[in-house]
């Protein structure tokens, strides 16, 4: 036992005495007779001393240690700590008769030869100004009790003599385990999903910030993850959830709900539909792969669509849980005031079970919560019912006066515990919110603020899950607290948000109606108010939403005032009904479908559904807590150590060689702790106003913790995107940057990053391109240029691409249809920069891929221009042009280099639109022009990124371009 306790302690503490005891209830809570005497009351009582080498002193404390039943003696944890100070006292007495009787049943196990059979009670007291804390313990081991009491007296004597030097800060290590409460409910999703380094104190070279506070943040995070990792038993549980949202417009169920309720293969196929133009969309081509990598590592974009056929089986199997949100269940005014009737709810539950058809008997209602017109219902598979527990509800009004329930939210929180043998798995907390926010286009700010308001007000009562072994907890009052919405592992919002599309009514309808069906959805979503709110962080920051491929769910007409798509002419169509989620990194969430169900026509909205698959790795709860306390002890007190952290870096210089536009290069840096103590490190900027590294460089991870001897690998990535290239193109080619790695409470280390930037024709101004003396790579200095009088009419790079396409492309479909191969694209970009000849298709080889690559490079080059071909101040004018002649007249106002590019390009597009299509082609001539305009208009008339000029209608831009190519 002594060995186990000593190994539990840190090296700076010595065990002075230890003995086995049994606890009774504390004296202020009832008498002794009620105590039970099984394993659960056994404790180890220890007196330990802490040597303070730097002052030559010593401090003592009594620890009461326990171990979970069935665990080995190494798995100790601290229950109570009593510092041996002036407030500490103890007394020993013969045990009372009643207690002795109770002891008799377990007598044999506790008593050993040579020990007295007498039972003694030891009372430990700690007197504070406001209260007295005490413990009463029973032991039979009088010999060890004697050494215990002797040590306590000695240590108290030391304390009394040097009272003013007492500190006891070392004890925080043992009491800090209380911070493991973080395991009792999930960490706020808004915290776990933000990069760790953003939570640290501001720091830069020579100004390290608050290292001690940073150490504790990094350590907390590291221990949490490490404990989870160590407690993971290697298997994971799968949970299928189908969520739905439906604004029923006050209607009672009158149709079969099965399409909405039962996952079909078709749902996922519909969601997987990809626009044929997607592969050439500049938005996709030009996204920065580093950013994607960063976001995915944060778990922020964990929603991925499963295309693999193996997953299709998962899609169509029955969900374990159905959670459905209804809005406008009851539109009557009485409902606002009374809302107690469950008549409507019962009818909907019945309709749901009916809609599940023959599978209905497998399900049972688990929970529901209604607030006026908003109802949330959870239905679970009977076989999995026992997995769901701790169900809590919450509701908050956000309607009239901010409290009435015509708008607002209802929510259900539940814990899901996978079935497991032998261990008690850690539960996963799922929270589902059904909300209905303010209506009308112009109320977007109100909706954003409603979201924040509801996020704050939707709270759940929680009775802390008490460890029944812990008598200390029984002693305290049952602790009640509330937990917020975001203290979940997975949070779903299945909502009628009322967010609209910020485009003119006519534009929205025209874009929805144009062929090929639904191909304009990605464009429309750029104007979606919810997407805008998420991107700007104004609301739903950090939430993921699966790509929308379905038509807007609102508002369908029930009478004659409908348009060709059956939308109500009086209301602009919108995706008002949405399903979003946010999840902790520990849960893998895969979304299998996201669609509307047009067959269900009873309401002015169409119901929306989404299928989710959750993979939760099974964590042994007890093992996790033990691992965490062990790690806490190991890592505590780093900031108190007299040692300084030491690390070794390999290599000290990262040479990236030639650095090309849009060619990702990755190198690794190994960081090893070769010091005596754990080390927390972080990369810092040279200056508070600067970033840690320039835009073309990324490091991951930025923060870390290493125990002595441990080694970690940091990835250093170079990637030059348009924004970096626009600056690098104007600077000397030598790349030289020093990364600063700061070790908390230690040194700053420098790592040199070098490279040779290769100039590119991408990401320049048109005026610069027209004055280059030759191919960009032949320039001797970034200032090399020819006189304005000698400048070429249009950049030769753009002309080279257009000439190639004019010469080689006979079928306009080749511009879009080939597979886009990055290696070919890279090759073509290189030819543009060096002036080399383009690769020619070998005889017999498909021309498609090369044509598609060159067309997409043309789009990329135009899109990379620092200023768009048509200056933003002219966009509004362009849209006013009603005829071909008017449009041509406007060219007089274009800057000269823009006119030349515009004329050459539109001539080419016009030529393409006139090409005779192969007879077997299904597309017609007008479609080709339309399609070319769809691709090129947003690039040539790119919206102003400075916000100086209001973006104009995307349809208008196309029409302007069509004047030239149609």
């Amino acid at each position, binding site marked *: 036992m002594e060995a186990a306790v000593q190994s539990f302690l840190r090296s700076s503490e010595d065990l002075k005495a230890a003995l086995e005891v049994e606890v009774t209830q504390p004296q202020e809570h009832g008498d002794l007779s009620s105590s039970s005497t099984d394993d659960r009351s056994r404790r180890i009582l220890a007196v330990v001393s802490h040597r303070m080498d730097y002052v030559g002193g010593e401090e003592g404390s009594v620890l009461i240690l326990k171990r979970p039943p069935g665990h080995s003696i190494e798995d100790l944890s601290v229950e109570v700590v009593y510092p041996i100070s002036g407030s500490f006292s103890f007394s020993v007495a013969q045990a009372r008769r009643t207690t002795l009787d109770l002891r008799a049943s377990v007598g044999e196990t506790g008593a050993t030869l040579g020990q007295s059979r007498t039972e003694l009670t030891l009372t430990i007291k700690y007197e504070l100004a406001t209260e007295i804390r005490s413990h009463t313990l029973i032991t039979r081991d009088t010999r060890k009790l004697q050494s215990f009491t002797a040590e306590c007296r000695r240590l108290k004597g030391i304390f009394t003599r040097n009272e003013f030097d007492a500190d006891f800060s070392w004890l925080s290590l043992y009491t800090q385990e209380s911070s493991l409460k973080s395991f009792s409910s999930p960490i706020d999703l808004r915290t776990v999903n933000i990069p760790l380094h953003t939570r640290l104190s501001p720091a830069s070279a020579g100004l390290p910030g*608050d290292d001690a506070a940073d150490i504790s943040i990094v350590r907390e995070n590291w221990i949490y993850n490490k404990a989870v990792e160590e407690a993971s038993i290697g298997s994971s549980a799968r949970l299928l959830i189908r969520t739905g949202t439906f604004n029923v417009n006050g209607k009672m169920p009158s149709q079969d709900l099965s399409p909405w309720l039962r996952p079909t293969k078709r749902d996922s196929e519909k969601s997987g539909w990809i626009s044929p133009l997607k592969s050439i969309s500049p938005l996709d081509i030009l996204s920065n792969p580093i950013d994607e990598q960063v976001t995915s590592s944060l778990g922020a974009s964990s929603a991925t669509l499963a295309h693999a056929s193996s997953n299709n089986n998962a899609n169509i199997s029955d969900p374990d849980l159905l959670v459905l949100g209804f809005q406008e269940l009851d539109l009557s005014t009485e409902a606002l005031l009374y809302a107690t009737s469950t008549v409507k709810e019962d009818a909907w539950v019945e309709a749901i079970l009916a809609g599940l058809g023959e599978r209905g008997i497998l399900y049972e209602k688990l929970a529901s919560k209604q607030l006026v017109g908003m109802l949330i219902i959870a239905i679970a598979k009977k076989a999995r019912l026992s997995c769901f527990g701790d169900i809590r509800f919450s509701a908050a009004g956000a309607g009239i006066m901010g409290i009435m329930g015509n708008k607002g939210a209802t929510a259900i929180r539940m814990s899901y515990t996978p079935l497991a043998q032998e261990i008690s798995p850690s539960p996963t907390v799922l929270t589902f919110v059904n909300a209905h926010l303010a209506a009308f286009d112009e109320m977007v700010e109100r909706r954003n603020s409603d979201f924040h308001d509801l996020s704050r007000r939707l709270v759940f009562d929680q009775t802390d899950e008490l460890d029944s072994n812990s008598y200390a907890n029984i002693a305290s009052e049952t602790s009640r607290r509330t937990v917020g919405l975001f203290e979940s592992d997975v949070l779903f919002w299945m909502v009628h948000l009322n967010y609209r599309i910020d485009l003119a009514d006519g534009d929205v309808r025209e874009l929805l109606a144009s062929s090929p069906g639904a191909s304009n959805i990605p464009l429309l979503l750029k104007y979606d108010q919810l997407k805008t709110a998420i991107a700007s962080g104004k609301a739903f920051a950090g939430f993921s939403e699966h790509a929308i491929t379905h038509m807007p769910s609102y508002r369908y007409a029930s009478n004659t005032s409908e348009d060709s798509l059956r939308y109500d002419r009086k209301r602009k169509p919108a995706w008002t009904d949405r399903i979003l989620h946010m999840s902790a990194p520990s849960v893998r969430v895969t979304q299998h479908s996201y669609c509307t169900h047009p067959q269900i026509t009873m309401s002015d909205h169409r119901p929306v559904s989404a299928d989710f698959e959750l993979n939760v790795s099974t964590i042994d709860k007890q093992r996790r807590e033990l691992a965490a306390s062990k790690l806490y002890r190991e890592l505590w007190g780093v900031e108190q150590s007299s040692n300084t952290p030491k690390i070794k870096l390999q290599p000290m210089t990262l040479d990236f060689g030639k650095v090309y536009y849009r060619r990702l290069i990755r190198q690794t840096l190994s960081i090893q702790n070769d010091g005596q103590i754990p080390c927390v490190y972080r990369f810092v900027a040279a200056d508070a106003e600067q970033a840690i590294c320039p835009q073309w460089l990324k490091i991951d991870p930025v923060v870390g913790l290493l125990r002595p001897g441990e080694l970690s690998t940091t990835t250093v990535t170079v990637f030059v995107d348009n924004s970096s290239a626009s600056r690098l193109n104007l600077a000397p080619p030598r790349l030289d940057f020093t990364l600063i790695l700061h070790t908390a409470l230690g040194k700053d280390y420098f790592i040199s990053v070098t490279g040779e930037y290769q100039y590119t024709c991408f990401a320049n101004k048109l005026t610069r391109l027209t004055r280059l003396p030759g191919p960009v790579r032949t320039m001797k200095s970034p200032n090399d240029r020819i006189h304005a009088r000698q400048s070429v009419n249009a950049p030769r790079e753009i002309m080279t691409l257009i000439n190639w396409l004019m010469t080689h492309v006979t079928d306009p479909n080749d511009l879009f249809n080939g597979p886009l191969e990055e290696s070919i694209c890279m090759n073509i970009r290189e030819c543009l920069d060096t002036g080399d000849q383009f690769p020619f298709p070998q005889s017999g080889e498909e021309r498609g891929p090369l044509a598609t690559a060159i067309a997409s490079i043309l789009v990329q080059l135009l899109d990379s221009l620092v200023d768009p071909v048509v200056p933003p101040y002219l966009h509004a004018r362009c849209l006013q042009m009603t005829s071909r002649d008017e449009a041509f007249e406007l060219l007089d106002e274009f800057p000269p280099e823009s006119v030349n590019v515009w004329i050459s390009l539109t001539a080419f597009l016009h030529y393409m639109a006139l090409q005779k299509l192969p007879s077997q082609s299904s597309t017609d001539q007008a479609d080709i022009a339309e399609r070319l305009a769809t691709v090129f208009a947003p690039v040539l008339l790119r919206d102003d990124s400075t916000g100086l000029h209001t973006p104009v209608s995307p349809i208008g831009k196309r029409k302007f371009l069509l004047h030239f190519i149609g």
Partner: protein
Amino acid sequence: MSKQFQFKLVLLGESAVGKSSLVLRFVKDQFDDYRESTIGAAFLTQTVTLEDQTTVKFEIWDTAGQERYKSLAPMYYRNANCAVVVYDITQTASLEKAKTWIRELQRQADPSIVIALCGNKLDLSARRQVTEEEASKYADEEGLLWSETSAKTGEGVNAIFNAIAKKLPLTAPPSARGARAAAPGTTRQNVDLNRQPTARGGEACNC
């Protein structure tokens, strides 16, 4: 109770003149014959007590001397109250480099900065290239503290830091801008006596 002051000190100078060795001698009274070149900046603290019982705590940034890291030096000498610019008495070029650093400090650092010029490697005086007269004359002209030291033998090391401590304005506390946030480890001997009984006691049963 005696007064306590805290100052930020930065070491500058050419590579291999012995900046890190000087700090090691001052802070830990140790010397390594073979020290790796500093690639970065090390942070150390040392307290000196003056005759009047005033204590001065130096927060020392020992910076890399290599030319390629020169652009980062301003990050470390900003807000510094004092600077020790080191040269090697056996290398004439290192004094020239020290002069460059001093000019930069006079131009860009806090105008009230106390600068000490320090000729190191006094134990190698047989190979001396920089005379005492030359260096001290320059220091006088520029209004700098000057002395020669040997990090290896320890000669003159404490004296130069003491001289700096005396020259620093000890009437008012230095600006806290440059001061590093105090870590618990650096304050452990200064226990808040009023806080101790209740704060510690309160944790007693809080497990």
